[in-house]
């Protein structure tokens, strides 16, 4: 079990290229995040939880899909930690564990609604249509 957690952490760190130890826990990422209220785990918590190896709850959390990948946290982080890349890496891990069940591009139009921000569509394509 311990090994599995470590392995997942390693994989996330490797795919994201992020070093969570650089974080000084200022919370600017969460202060900056436009999707903060939608999220169960906020950007700074993502960083902290990955650092601690607390990956399981993140994998199960809806927060993964609330992140817009707007990269505001990456841009503003004073320590160059890049939280959004971590979120992305956790997301990728989920997708990989799911196998080949992701959306096809032609499934997307019917799911769209007018309220949906443009940016979300673009990042959704990036997220789901690999």
């Amino acid at each position, binding site marked *: 079990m311990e090994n599995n957690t470590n392995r997942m952490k390693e994989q996330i760190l490797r795919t994201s290229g992020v070093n969570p130890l*650089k974080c*000084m*826990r*200022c*919370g*600017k*990422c*969460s*202060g*900056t*995040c436009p999707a*903060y*209220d939608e999220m169960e785990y*906020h950007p*700074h*918590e993502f960083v902290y939880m990955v650092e601690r190896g607390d990956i399981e709850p993140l994998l199960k959390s809806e927060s993964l899909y609330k992140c817009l990948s707007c990269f*505001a946290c990456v*841009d*503003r*982080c*004073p*320590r*160059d*930690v890049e939280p959004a890349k971590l979120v992305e890496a956790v997301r990728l891990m989920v997708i990989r564990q799911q196998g080949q069940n992701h959306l096809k591009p032609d499934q997307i139009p019917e799911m769209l609604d007018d309220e949906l921000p443009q940016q979300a569509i673009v990042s959704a394509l990036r997220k789901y249509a690999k």
Partner: protein
Amino acid sequence: MQRIGVFVCHCGTNIAGTVDVKAVAEALRYEPGVVISTEYQYMCSQAGQDMIHEAIRENNLTGIVVCSCSPRMHEATFRKTAQSAGLNPYMVEIANIREQCSWVHKDMEIGTEKAIILGRAAIAKVNLNAPLTPGETPVTKRALVIGGGIAGIQTALDIADAGFPVDIVETKPTIGGKMAQLDKTFPTLDCAACILTPKMVEAAQHENIRILSYSEVQDIKGFVGNFTVQIKKKARYVKEDICTGCGLCTEKCPQKKVPNEFNLEMDNRRAIYIPFAQAVPKVATIDPNYCTMLKTGKCGVCAKVCTAKAIDYTQKDEIMEEKYGAIVAATGFNPISMKPFDEYAYSQSKDVITSLEFERLMNAAGPTGGKLLRPSDGKHPHTIVFVQCVGSRCSAHASKGKEYCSKICCMYTAKHAMLTRDKYPDTDVYVFYIDVRTPGKNFDEFYRRAVEEYGVHYVKGMVGKVSPEGDKLMVQASDLLADKQLHIEADLVVLAAAIEPDMSARPLATMLTASMDTNDFFTEAHPKLRPVESPTAGVFLSGACQGPKDIPETVSQAGAAAAKVIGLLAKDKLKGNPCVAGSDEWMCNGCSSCERVCPYGAITYVTKEFRMPDRTTALRRVAQVNEAVCQGCGACTVACPSGAMDLKGFASSQIMAEVDAICK
């Protein structure tokens, strides 16, 4: 032939553990020139030194070799011992058998063998040593302080009080620096002007201090005790000695639209101006970029109204050359530019300000007369958000900001928050912090008072975004302890901008050949033991040019720098390093190769008459070394093709003797 004594140290077991010291002493006894060879537990102890002392006396030794720890450790000790026994201190050589032998080798046999070889090399060198006497250079008993802020003023006052003349060079029209712009000072909340301006006046009136305001250092030559400095006195178009500082011209000048840098451009001044009421020297200065008379030749109002006839439009920059024995860098700091921090809307809204701008808004002499009013509409702000660490503590890889903690922001932000709540209890004050760092006497108590007595809302978290909406500023921030994102409608946002060394510091460091770190702070000679000295002899550091500092620290460092300067200036002569280059005139070609590689300009040429081997006389150009300037690097000795140039203490013959001994 030398009479050499060899002294092998056990250093407890540090050496004796891996090196058979008795065998070393025995082996070295039969080296050429050696008359006595012995070992002892601790050569550097009093008993050990006494032993060396006695041995020198009894055996009429002309040189000694101590096989012990690194010469960087105890060379000075053993030189003193030798001197006390009447031996020239430069007849001592150290064989480093600890750091470079016993500590890096494990095998006794190998260690012993190497120790013997190292000892042999040192003996070979001593055989060729010659007594050396350090040259002496006189000290110019006068100091230059570069920068007229609190650091420079305090250093100058302390040096002047000790009886040495001091010049302060300040690039602005007045001394006072950043402290003159502050309102109150933490943690006692006394007014900055009330404690600073008396010092400025004291400096101005001190018989040993000369203030060169509106001046810049242009060039520095020379070395410790003997610097020659070129100072440019910029034309202020006002005769400094005649102007009474009445200020009439500054009221009558028709050019009213000059951004006032003293108030951080939050209001305007005239083209002729005195930065602030307590300026020292209290003399008007014409800003040539805005003066209509200087630009177009038409106006002359100030000259007309000046009863003292102090205005002189024809003034030119003046270069003066002065000599000093010591130089103190006190160039201070500036807040970094907030322009790259777009998320805080600094460039979009006038109501997002830096802490220094906030100081001016709170200051009775500031643009609002001390009333806290918003720069945009002059209204009283009801909700104020302070953001700490803006641009401080950033990653080296981040696109903006500084890596270090600016140190002073936590305290001044607490001060601002407290003062705001004190003056305007109806204001809501939020402080967003990453950590509150308050190590300092009465500092944490001060911060706690802000929270507990003044009701400042301290929020652990960071502001992510500030967006102007109507006349409000929408602040979006995290509250990490509540695990919430906050949205605050603020009237004013104050950014605690990181501080950086003044721009003038790097060119100054180049002129001084002083070293700097990657952030352009001056490097100290030793971070713990020599914190106010630069590695360049005769150059001292005072205040924030060495690193971020608050006022109490700056003042104590200023005093420390002054003490070091006084210690230097109190000497009549400086003893130099006797291991300097020397040229054999008979062999010198006068080719200038040595001169070209000398980093100190220590080599000059004279043309002298020589009686040549063929009995003719000839005029020859030959090199001469200024021993006071030479630092003994030896670059010239290799550049010299004829071998005329050699280095005392590290002569070619000595080094080759060591090579031979090692390779034997």
